[in-house]
């Protein structure tokens, strides 16, 4: 994998994220006190005078805070810019939208690349283990800092949905509406298994150096790239891959085999192979391997029921929060069955819950793509909740 051409995240920040530094830090579930705590975030729209129109959007495993603006690292549009903006389903003319880089991330929030106060060196692989609760607790500190007592809504897909559920469980009085999308109340054995393969790919890279690759001026690009390639398959579906690539073979100068050469096992490259390699090589430019390990582990630990005496209804009992659970029919990473499990638990808890399975053949990634029914669902749920919160009247 050739990543030598352009600057990567390993070269350190070449731009400044909007960041808040909280010197009091954060007590992690593992017992470590992390201080200072820095949180990088973006906001869109205007906070109402009553401070009651804030929506927190939680990003997925490899997402970041650049929700609806050009990402300074990749130069690409924000990851949900088709959903968040003026007049869009998450309407920044009406709502104050916040998105922060998760704890343990590598886009400005405290994580493995941050300096450990005690040693004066970067944490790298010594960064303490974190959980979804820690990630959300860090977000709550940001919300405190912004002077917001109660969020109007918390919305997130995939790992973002785990955060949204954790908000509802940990801070029920601080969130009026929650939208967990393409997610699950626990990380399944299959998903832990996929994460483990990703991690083993990183560990097997000679440039891994036990996580201290930066001391060697290296990054485990091959391992991290393979991890991303494998994970990317799980975000799609057979139908989506077939439609996009089929069995087509690439015919271009880079992969063409000279007529004179002898037949070769890999002389030709399927388009799907080329696509995955591209996914892998672009990913390692923007993502840190230690962050990947830290955050995937936090996902693996996630199991809301287990933390509440084995009953998933327990964290949501007497909750006044309005829920809208969304799944996608072809998502096999976070299948509808897991959303349904969540919905049943919410019913046992007597919570107000909407539940929609969106028909799509594009797999887990559908929540990031153009799905009109999904757009209508988000818009409708938010507006309906706003009506209940009496946001419509007044001056938001």
């Amino acid at each position, binding site marked *: 994998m050739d990543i030598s051409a352009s600057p990567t995240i390993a070269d350190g920040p070449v731009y400044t994220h909007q960041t808040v530094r909280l010197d009091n830090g954060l007590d992690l579930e593992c017992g470590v006190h992390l201080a200072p705590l820095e949180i990088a975030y973006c906001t869109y729209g205007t906070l109402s005078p009553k401070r009651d129109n804030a929506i927190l959007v939680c990003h997925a495993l490899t997402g970041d805070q650049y929700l609806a603006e050009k990402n300074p690292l990749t130069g690409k549009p924000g990851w949900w810019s088709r959903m968040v903006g003026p007049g869009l389903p998450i309407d920044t003319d009406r709502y104050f939208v916040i998105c922060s880089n998760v704890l343990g991330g590598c886009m400005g929030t405290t994580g493995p690349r941050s300096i450990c106060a005690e040693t004066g060196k970067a944490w790298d692989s010594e960064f303490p283990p974190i959980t979804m609760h820690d990630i959300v607790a860090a977000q709550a500190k940001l919300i405190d800092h912004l002077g917001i007592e109660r969020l109007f809504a918390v919305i997130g897909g995939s790992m973002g949905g785990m955060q949204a559920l954790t908000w509802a469980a940990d801070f029920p009085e601080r969130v009026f509406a929650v939208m967990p999308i393409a997610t699950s109340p626990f990380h399944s054995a299959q998903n832990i298994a996929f994460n483990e393969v990703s991690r083993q790919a990183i560990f097997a890279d000679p440039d891994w150096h036990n996580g201290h690759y930066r001391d060697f001026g290296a990054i485990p690009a091959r391992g991290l790239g393979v991890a991303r390639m494998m994970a990317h398959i799980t975000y799609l579906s057979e139908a989506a891959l077939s439609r996009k690539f089929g069995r087509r073979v690439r015919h271009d100068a880079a992969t063409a085999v000279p007529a004179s050469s002898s037949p070769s096992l890999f002389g030709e490259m399927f388009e799907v192979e080329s696509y995955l390699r591209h996914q892998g090589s672009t990913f390692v430019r923007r993502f840190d391997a230690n962050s990947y390990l830290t955050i995937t582990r936090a996902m693996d630990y996630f199991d809301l029921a287990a933390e509440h005496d084995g009953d998933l209804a327990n964290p949501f009992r007497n909750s006044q929060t309005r829920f809208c659970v969304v799944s996608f029919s072809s998502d096999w990473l976070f299948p509808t069955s897991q959303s349904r499990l969540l919905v049943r638990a919410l019913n046992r808890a007597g919570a107000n819950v909407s539940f929609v399975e969106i028909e799509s053949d594009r797999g887990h990634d559908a929540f990031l793509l153009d799905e009109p029914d999904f757009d209508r669902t988000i*818009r409708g749920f938010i507006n309906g909740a706003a009506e209940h919160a009496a946001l419509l009247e007044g001056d938001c």
Partner: protein
Amino acid sequence: MRVDQRLIAEMIAPRARVLDVGSGDGTLIDYLYRTRSCDARGIEIDMQNVTQSVAHGLPVMHGDADHDLADYPDDTFDYVVLQRTLQAVERPREVLRQMLRIGRHAIVSFPNFGHWRLRLQLLTTGRMPMTSVWSTPWYSTPNIHPCTIQDFLLLCEEEGYVVQQWLAIDEDGARAPWRRSIRLANLFGEQAMFLLKRAGH
């Protein structure tokens, strides 16, 4: 809104907690929320309807009467509504039990299989009757548990439900004049609507 839905709405007290099982496009729960300030929620089996309802801001979840009522705690709702669906569920008696477990009241409407036109058709043609209310042939009908008004009353008696209110309604859902006699209602009522509660409450 259909006339029979208006009749249902009239049975429901303001600010009540309501679950509409088979909420369709959400008309009834929308009406109950807007005009009666009810906490009205829906369960609907058709995903297009669910999406449309949620897109209108209504709290509706995908599910069905046979499988999704068991999850709710006792007395979660003041009213649980089942419109024109009882004859199509897998286990009508169990569905009624669940409705009156999770709700203090149940409002049930169903097409009456005792209507004279059906009786006459079966008698004269010897074939399964088909009318505008019962409009699908036997081999493809979703209505697997048809019953008459008298059948339903018997079941209520067996199960110990108190019939607080009942009325026969015509095809369009308007109230029919057979209020005094169950026999006449069973003969001339195309549909029936019941407001039930558990005995001893």
